[in-house]
């Protein structure tokens, strides 16, 4: 692991340029700060250093001192202190910087060493590139263009190893492609705390395998696929589905919990093929849970709502919006917001609640946190509702107050933004007693009972922001268009608000949002960096949040 930046800096000279880096930095990271690429396979910034691939060879030297007097030895030709170069290359990942250290990252000796390493790595590597899922994002392919020789001197038969081993429910292993870098082994041991992978046999017989009787089935197993520098570990879900060079990358946020894991959606022509983590050292490092990656399947699920429905019959958006506006005008309204909606949607819903003079409620979703990247709060944006003022207290899982109000006849119309009221404790009789306006993505008991159904967009189909457990506001972008017949939540909410709506798109909404919400003042959507911005959380410090400690989060009480 890289040590946290400390004030004490060390000055090193890399390819003739002096740079001050924090003490404890290794040569690969120091060179990265100068945009010098040191190729590597086994080194990963978030794992321990193994130093077994030997690809990150650099030339290294220290300023010369007289052994007896400790006085610097000067070079008469240049007038500077002489450098004693080590006669053989050293590995960059396992070398920590020292004051005055000199590094060469592209000398002839370094190039020679890397070419030798590449030739050995390719000796037994199969010619699988046309069928390999890693092609296009393969480190071996990339470095082969720089350091490969273009033909093979290996005339012996290549190694034969198992080609499709199921390591677990989500990971398939091709042992022939493995270059034995041990990243997956170290990840399982250090991050996932599930030490099931290891190497058996020796020399060119070495094979990555699972502990007998065990499986790589922890909820973080797909991270081994991400960090595999070659195509040895592949995702069973994504296997042979699409070549990566066709896929468009869109930044998003994991919607499964309030951890707010940064992710990337990979899509082509409106179809999502996979989700992978995006590095954010403040939130999720480079990891993501498997369960969050499969959520893209919600987008094309068969129970997606795509038809506007009024009184049980298909209708048009305008008719439905008028019908909904009439229902809202008649009074006795209750609003159920969502911890899955974006900050912008919650802000418009808050405006609507204020216009109607009612309070909104939220539905809590909780589960066991895994102390890593799934928190106990399974709503990604409950804190957004607090920040925008949609609610002022933490939500409960059951809408007991709403149920009582329906029974007493106090509430005659319920506007639900994506929440299934039946799942939140309302009975079928209670649902039948009120007129429901449902804005949502998937069919459920509430959409079936609703008087007006307005199909809206999934998180991956729209832009917005979430506030995660650290009170970090993070933005996500639209990756694919929504199904025909659906509308953006913001458009629907703005239409329901009528002329009072500030805007119906994310960018247009932000000036009003910043003006109305103190915690977001001075911010604009376009100014939020991809790594997010921490908000001042002091106004909510006293609330009993459900999250326990996780990878980058400590609850206020424990901190």
């Amino acid at each position: 692991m890289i040590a946290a930046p400390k004030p004490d800096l060390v000055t090193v000279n890399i390819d003739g340029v002096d740079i001050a880096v924090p003490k404890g930095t290794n040569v690969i990271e120091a060179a990265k700060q100068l945009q010098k690429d040191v190729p590597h396979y086994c080194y990963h910034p978030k794992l321990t250093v193994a130093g077994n691939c030997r690809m990150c060879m650099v030339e290294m030297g220290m300023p010369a001192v007289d052994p007896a007097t400790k006085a610097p030895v000067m070079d008469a030709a240049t007038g500077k202190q002489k450098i004693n170069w080590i006669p053989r290359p050293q590995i960059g990942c396992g070398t920590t910087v020292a004051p005055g250290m000199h590094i060469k990252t592209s000398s002839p000796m370094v190039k020679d060493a890397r070419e030798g390493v590449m030739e050995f790595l390719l000796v037994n590597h199969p010619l699988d590139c046309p069928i390999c899922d890693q092609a296009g994002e393969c480190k071996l392919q990339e470095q082969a263009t720089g350091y490969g020789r273009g033909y093979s001197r290996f005339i012996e038969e290549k190694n034969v190893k198992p080609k499709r081993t199921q390591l677990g429910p989500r990971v398939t292993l091709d042992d022939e492609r493995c270059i034995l870098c041990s990243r997956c082994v170290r990840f399982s041991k250090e991050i996932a705390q599930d030490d099931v992978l290891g190497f058996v046999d020796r020399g060119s017989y070495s094979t990555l395998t699972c502990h007998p009787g065990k499986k790589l089935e922890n909820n973080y197993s797909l991270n081994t696929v991400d960090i595999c520098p070659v195509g040895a570990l592949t995702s069973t879900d994504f296997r042979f589905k699409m070549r990566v060079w066709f896929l468009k990358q869109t930044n998003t946020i994991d919607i499964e919990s309030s951890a707010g894991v940064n992710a990337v959606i990979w899509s082509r022509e409106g179809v999502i093929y996979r989700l992978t983590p995006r590095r954010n050292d403040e939130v999720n490092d480079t990891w993501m849970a498997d369960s969050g990656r499969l959520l893209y399947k919600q987008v094309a699920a068969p129970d997606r709502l795509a038809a506007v429905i009024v009184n049980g019959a298909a209708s048009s958006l305008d008719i439905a919006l008028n019908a909904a506006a009439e229902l809202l005008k008649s009074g006795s309204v209750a609003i159920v917001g969502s911890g899955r909606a974006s900050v912008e949607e919650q802000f418009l819903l808050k405006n609507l609640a204020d216009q109607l003079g009612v309070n909104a409620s939220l539905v809590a979703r909780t589960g066991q946190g895994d102390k890593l990247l799934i928190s106990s709060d399974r709503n990604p944006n409950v804190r957004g509702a607090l920040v925008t003022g949609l609610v002022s207290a933490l939500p409960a899982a059951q809408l007991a107050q709403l149920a009582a109000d329906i029974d007493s006849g106090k509430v005659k119309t319920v506007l639900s933004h994506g929440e299934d009221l039946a799942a939140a404790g309302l009975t079928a009789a209670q649902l039948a007693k009120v007129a429901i306006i449902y804005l949502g993505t998937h069919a459920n008991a509430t959409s079936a009972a609703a008087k007006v159904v307005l199909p809206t967009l999934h998180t991956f189909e729209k832009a917005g922001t979430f506030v995660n457990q650290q009170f970090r506001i993070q933005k996500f972008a639209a990756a694919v268009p929504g199904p025909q017949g659906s509308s953006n939540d913001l458009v629907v909410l703005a239409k329901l608000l009528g002329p009072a709506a500030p805007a119906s798109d994310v960018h247009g909404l932000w000036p009003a949002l910043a003006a109305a919400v103190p915690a977001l003042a001075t911010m604009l959507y376009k100014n939020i960096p991809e790594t997010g911005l921490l908000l001042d959380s002091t106004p909510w410090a006293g609330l009993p949040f459900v999250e326990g400690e996780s990878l980058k989060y400590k609850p206020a009480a424990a901190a």
Partner: protein
Amino acid sequence: MAVVTVERKPLSFLERTYLPNIAAGLATTFKRMVQPVETLEYPEQRPAIPAGYRGVPTLVYDPNGREKCVSCQLCEFVCPPKAIRITPGEIAHDDANAHVEKRPEEFKIDMLRCIYCGLCQEVCPEEAIWLQNQYSMTGYTREEMVNDKKRLYELGGTLPDSHFKWDKKAAAEKAAHAGGHH
């Protein structure tokens, strides 16, 4: 602008009879009648196709009947008019070609888009797609002009192979299982 009046020359007697020109025209006609024919009675007669001709792109089998395409989608990527569409798929574990692992589930070439540039053939790492002699594609509907996988293999047939890369791979696997090489 000045106008210049040009006097038309009167025709001579012979010119007025038209006979010399008719004779000259007929001479050409009779000369052509005895010369060898240079046109073809298309479509009954077909031209000879020169080597290296770039006709309709097709998919081919290797001499052992294995479909050569492994659906790497490089042709789909390189195709300038985006005429190629491939749906990749996995070869079942019990298939005779299971060691190849991957093949196209569907392979479509839209011949209304194809410009016969031959980049797909050039880029193919498996030598599976070839622009062969077929040059005439006709159809009544747009759908008919899209060649699917079945049609592409009908058009392509079998071509000779000099590598047998996958057969060698299968042989090495077999030898390894028999306890031979490693």
